[in-house]
């Protein structure tokens, strides 16, 4: 099998899956219309039952859909030793600007392809179990496959236009999947919010592409070198706006927590492991460009990382906590990507995808078992650990430790690399900010862990029957194992070699110090939330008397809520909604005025035409 064929398989296998699912959906709709008419004629009122069945279309879809990303995954594994740039076809053949549709295979895209296709294969399998009883099963997989297709386009693009195709495509699939259960008003609203916020980012992205085109006369990545020094910042700024929109950084973070209304595997795949990392990928890919704006990228990232960690402390919804942790980790990735060793950001993306996907999938198992309950305090009452959901409980613990960066779990290696790189590039300020961020992560993550699984007698029995059935059990198990052993792939060193950093990572900050800080965070979390039932009666009285229950909800409640309130209200209500309402009012007034000029008798039309002609003659 030659490289070209592998490239085509990587790029188009998920699209094939999408087409198969689209055909299945057409068949299914036709069938369901006829069956509905049938049941109506009979006068049955239980029409909803037939849709829950696992019919033939669903079976085919369940078989084909995971196969599509898996084919890409296998092709990626086969192409690993190679390095090539495959031009599939000339997409927009113009004389001056030639945009090709191509598959670019280098270390960076290979790393990204591995986790995109690998994690999405696992999540496809998990989804079969999760969505089994949903009537929109085929529609769901259709969008999921399409999403993987567009995500791969982002990764393998060798020019900004193909990147933009993938960029818009993943966004589109994301809105559809957030509003998947579109009957709910809130769900539709969340999808809409994501859409609006992303528009702001995309606006910047388009301006960035156009500037790039105007300055360099092309859209290929390798044209970066043609930019003049004074042009760098403008292009980088606008492109970074796009990256911040997709990766929910800075003021554009608003949409991501609300995006959690979609099905949980979607949150795991799109809003945690792959799509939201597209911004980081772009920054790393265009490192020569973004290096000129490294302060912008770094401070946006690190401030988001710290702020979102604080916001995560005030959430009771497990998926929203995970969303805030994603935001926070994305901030760290941007911080890494802003350093001289850009690959550290990508390294963290790679490792992060395992434990974050696992965490989300575990929350999915919990929701699946406990009637879509997401409140951590209510989940605690269901006592998941005592029911033998040991994979959920243990996996959550392991992934939380991995995210905190504890040796020797996967997160340790990448976080260590980022801290050292930041210390080298940004000096003491950067290092302190990084340490604050590493302190906050264990506090809010262990809060979620202690509240949900703490104070229970764990029943150790590792069996799929307790953890949502084997279709959901094994993907999570694999992801948890990967989160443990993620370090052995040594992706960091591999990526580093590409950039000529073959020497061992220089530990600017002692790993021991980082571990002390992390465990201090764990300890605080344990002291506040960890003891659960073990609090003695007297302490409990004290606890209640001093309203420490309320304190539990927020020692920082005033400051934290205030910050959130300000950024939410000022930014969303005033800036976004205000802007839109003013614009829509003005355009409506303009529209009424314009349309008032039209119509009327033929004589009036003639008069207006002559006036129009006079205007045109005046312009000459």
């Amino acid at each position, binding site marked *: 099998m030659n490289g070209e064929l592998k490239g085509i398989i990587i790029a188009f296998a998920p699209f094939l899956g999408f087409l198969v699912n689209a055909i299945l959906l057409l068949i299914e*709709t036709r069938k369901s219309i006829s069956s509905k008419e049938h049941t109506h004629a009979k006068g049955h009122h239980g029409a909803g039952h037939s849709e829950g069945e696992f019919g033939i279309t669903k079976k085919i879809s369940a078989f084909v859909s995971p196969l599509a990303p898996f084919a890409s995954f296998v092709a990626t594994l086969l192409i690993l030793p190679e390095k090539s740039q495959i031009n599939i076809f000339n997409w*927009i*053949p*113009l004389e001056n600007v030639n945009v090709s549709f191509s598959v670019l295979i280098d270390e960076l895209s290979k790393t990204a392809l591995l986790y995109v296709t690998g994690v999405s294969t696992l999540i496809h399998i998990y989804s079969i179990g999760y969505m089994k009883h949903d009537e929109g099963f085929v529609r769901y997989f259709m969008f999921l496959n399409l999403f993987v297709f567009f995500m791969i386009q982002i990764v393998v693009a060798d020019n900004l236009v193909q990147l933009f*195709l993938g960029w818009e495509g993943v966004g589109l699939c994301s809105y559809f999947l957030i509003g998947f259960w579109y009957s709910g008003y809130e769900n539709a609203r969340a999808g809409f919010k994501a859409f609006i916020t992303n528009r702001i980012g995309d606006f910047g992205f388009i301006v960035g592409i156009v500037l790039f085109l105007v300055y360099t006369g092309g859209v290929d990545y390798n044209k970066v070198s043609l930019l003049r020094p004074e042009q760098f910042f403008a292009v980088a700024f606008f492109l970074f706006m796009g990256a911040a929109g997709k990766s929910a950084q800075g003021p554009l973070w608003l949409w991501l927590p609300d995006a959690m209304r979609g099905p949980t595997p979607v949150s795991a795949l799109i809003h945690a492991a792959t799509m939201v990392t597209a911004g980081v990928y772009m920054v790393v890919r265009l490192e020569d460009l973004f290096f000129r704006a490294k302060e912008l990228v770094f401070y946006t990232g690190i401030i988001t990382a710290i702020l979102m960690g604080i916001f995560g402390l005030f959430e009771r919804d497990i998926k929203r906590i995970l969303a805030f942790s994603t935001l926070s980790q994305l901030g760290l990735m941007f911080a890494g990507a802003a350093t001289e060793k850009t690959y550290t950001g990508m390294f963290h993306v790679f490792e992060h995808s395992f434990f974050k996907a696992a965490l989300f999938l575990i929350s999915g198992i919990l929701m699946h078992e406990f009637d879509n309950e997401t409140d951590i305090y209510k989940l605690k009452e269901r006592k998941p650990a005592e029911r033998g959901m040991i994979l959920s409980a243990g996996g959550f613990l392991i992934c939380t430790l991995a995210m905190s960066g504890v040796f020797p779990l996967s997160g340790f290696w990448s976080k260590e690399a980022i801290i050292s790189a930041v210390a080298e590039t940004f000096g003491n300020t950067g290092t302190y900010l990084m340490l604050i961020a590493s302190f906050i992560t264990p506090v809010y993550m262990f809060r979620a862990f202690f509240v949900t699984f703490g104070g229970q007698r764990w029943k150790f029995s590792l069996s799929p029957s307790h953890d949502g059935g084997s279709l959901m059990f094994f993907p999570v198990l694999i992801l948890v194992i990967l989160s443990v052993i993620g370090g052995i792939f040594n992706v960091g060193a591999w990526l580093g070699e590409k950039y000529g950093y073959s020497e061992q990572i220089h530990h600017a900050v002692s790993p021991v110090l980082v571990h002390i800080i992390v465990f201090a965070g764990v300890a605080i979390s344990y002291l506040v939330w960890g003891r659960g039932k073990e609090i003695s009666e007297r302490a409990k009285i004290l606890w209640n008397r001093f309203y420490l229950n309320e304190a539990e909800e927020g020692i920082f409640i005033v400051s934290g809520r205030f910050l959130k309130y300000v950024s939410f209200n000022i930014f969303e209500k005033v800036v976004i909604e205000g802007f839109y309402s003013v614009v829509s009012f003005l355009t409506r007034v303009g529209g009424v005025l314009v349309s008032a000029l039209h119509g009327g008798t033929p004589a009036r039309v*003639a008069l207006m*035409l002559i006036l*129009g*002609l006079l205007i045109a003659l005046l312009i*000459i």
Partner: protein
Amino acid sequence: METSVVYEKISFADILSVWGSFLVSLFISIIGFLISKIKKNINISWISALVSALVILVFSVVGRVYEDPFQAVFFDKIFFVSIFLISVFSILSVFISLSELDYKDSLSSEFFFFLIISAFGAILMTSSQDFLTLFLSKELMSFPIYAMVYAFRDKIGVESALKYFVAGAIFSLIYLVGFSFFLMSEEVIRVAEPKGILGVFGIYLIIFSLLFKGGTAPFHFWVPDVYQGAPASVVSFAGSVVKFSSFVAALRVIDITKIEFFVPLEALAIISIVVGVLGALVQKEIKRLVAYSSISHSGFIIFFLFSSGNADVKNYLLFYLATYGIATAGIFGLISLFKKNLVYLEDFVGLSRKHRYISLLIGIFILSFAGIPMTAGFFAKYMSFLSAFYTERILAVVFGAIGSIASLYFYFQPMSRSFMESVENTSSQVTASQEGEDKVYISPFVLFLISVLALILIVLGFIPGLFFRLIGGIPLSF
């Protein structure tokens, strides 16, 4: 004009193939028309119109580029592409009209005859070598349409036809004034580079009157009323063919005369975009909405005229007009299927429940209008921005970008309504829809044709190069 084009040696067969095919085609449609007029109970004029359109379609495929011995028409690549597209649009319009008009009625027999005559005018208009041929072909195209607008013989139709006629007459006058200025100054009727200032002014007036036909603001006041009052099939013809020929003719005139026309063109483009977008925002009828959107599209098409000398840009213009014409023909074809049951935007509510497939097709055409990626409209808009960039008309690009973002609002109006279920008064809705369904007969053949159009838009949305390969422009390499 195109000195680089090497004309092949002219043979008798070539002359015969051009004028012969035109005459045969004309003869067929006249015969069909006459038979339908004399024999009151049969109407074969639509069949003869189809056959005559097919004859010139075949000619456009087999014909060769050569120099016209009469110096009246350019037989170049644009000419053949125009014949091809215009005859395809005419064939579509014939089929669309069949579902809307009562074709057994002998009164509608002249409709199809007019359609073919108008198409002839449009073809000649795209490739005239002198201003006299241009004027005559322009009028040949226009007059049948005035009558076609009145095909339903209702009150609103006669008002629209009158408005269109009056407006057309004013701008024919403007054309003649411009032509006489040109003639005074240059003393030739050929389209040529003017030497005196009076000639330049004359050409300005001529271009204004061509842009008027294309529906450009501020010469657009007839557009909403005519679109509203005319039958959907006529609007589909006018929107695709008239716009096509007017802008191609304007491109040729600007290209040959080489006049510096940037500032007024940029102003017209911006006015068109602003007026079109603002006007469309408050419309409640689908035809008026598409009319305003067509005004804003005229603004985008003017972007191509900025750099008319560029060979690439000519191809881009053809691409834009072809895809725009396809989308217009498609959407009015679908509207015509519903006769008068799909007039207001509110009529779209719940459409996807009753006619799932049709609402999907409407969605594709509207997305193409809006220039959403994965439809041909995206590349069309992209090319128009690119053309504006070539000459660095940045202000036009800025207005174009704002306009295309704002236009999303009204483009999504019919779509969001068609996927919306009306919660209130479902009972009255149901009875209304049942009555409506009795009236609506969806011709499967027309639906098939329109599906092919939608498919073309999607395919071109992924591989726009296919079009250029078809018309022999920039080669596409796989």
